[in-house]
């Protein structure tokens, strides 16, 4: 990943992690795979970078987690969105929509901003 993209991603990592958990509970490895897949490999993060975000989001009550052992599988810590987490994701989506629209307008050169 390019340096600028990595820097931009850092500022949005919490929202990206929340979005990756929107479909349902998942463990760290699955979250990273979801981020990679949904970004069509643009965000190929070092896998360790997602854990501080998971712990930070759990500490502020946006995620909850519990150890689970699937039948015949390895014990994993599963993370899921809390109600507050879903609300925070909705807020961040709105904010991102406004922000990206403004940046598109500025960088795209097509129309004036603010409209």
């Amino acid at each position: 990943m390019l340096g600028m993209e990595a820097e931009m991603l850092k500022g949005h990592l919490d929202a990206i992690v929340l979005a990756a958990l929107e479909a349902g509970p998942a463990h760290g490895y699955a979250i990273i795979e979801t981020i990679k897949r949904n970004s069509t490999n643009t965000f190929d993060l070092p896998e360790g970078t997602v854990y501080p975000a998971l712990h930070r989001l759990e500490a502020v009550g946006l995620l909850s987690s519990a150890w689970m052992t699937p039948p015949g599988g390895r014990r994993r810590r599963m993370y899921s969105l809390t109600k507050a987490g879903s609300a925070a994701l909705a807020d961040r989506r709105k904010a991102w929509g406004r922000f990206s629209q403004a940046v598109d307008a500025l960088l795209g050169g097509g129309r004036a901003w603010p409209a």
Partner: protein
Amino acid sequence: MAGVIDDYVAALRRDLDFDPTLARRLADEVESQLWEAAEADLAGPSPEAERRAVARFGLAREVAAQFASDAIARQARRSCIMLAATVAVTFIAMRLRVIWLDDLGGSVSALAPLIDRYAFIAALLVGIVGWFAFRRSVLPLAVCRAGLAASIAAGIARAGLFVDGAPLHVLLPAAGEIALIGLLSWHVFGLHRRLRRTATLRRAG
């Protein structure tokens, strides 16, 4: 013989030594993820697959440094709350002591009232200035803590609390301020330790 994953998890545990609970929890979690990644490797589980899983995870000290930064923010918040509580309880205890001493007509030392009052005021000023000017340094917090400790010690010496048989409404706030200054010292020390650890991890990275 320990494998690549075991060595990595041990290194992560060492780098997270500023928070043993986090170190334990994260080590378990990361170990589970790394084994899963190694087992999912296209070439099948092998020492080479373990090495690839560890390489994709990132350097242990960089992961630990990110946790340390988050821990500093949390610890700084807790220290500030503790500082505010200590200032409030010290002020209340000081006022109750003054009222009680006025009733008795004096104190056991001439110097103690001055230290009691001015160390408290100095601690408060350093705390306020430090909060706005040096958010990334533990020094103002440490100086503020020292000022409050001096004020509390002087206040207790001034009243001769435990030799003169002070009433409960004077003794309880005094016990509270002693407990709070102890907790504050512990928090400030913890913050200092985390700041040093983060700096070390960042230098090593």
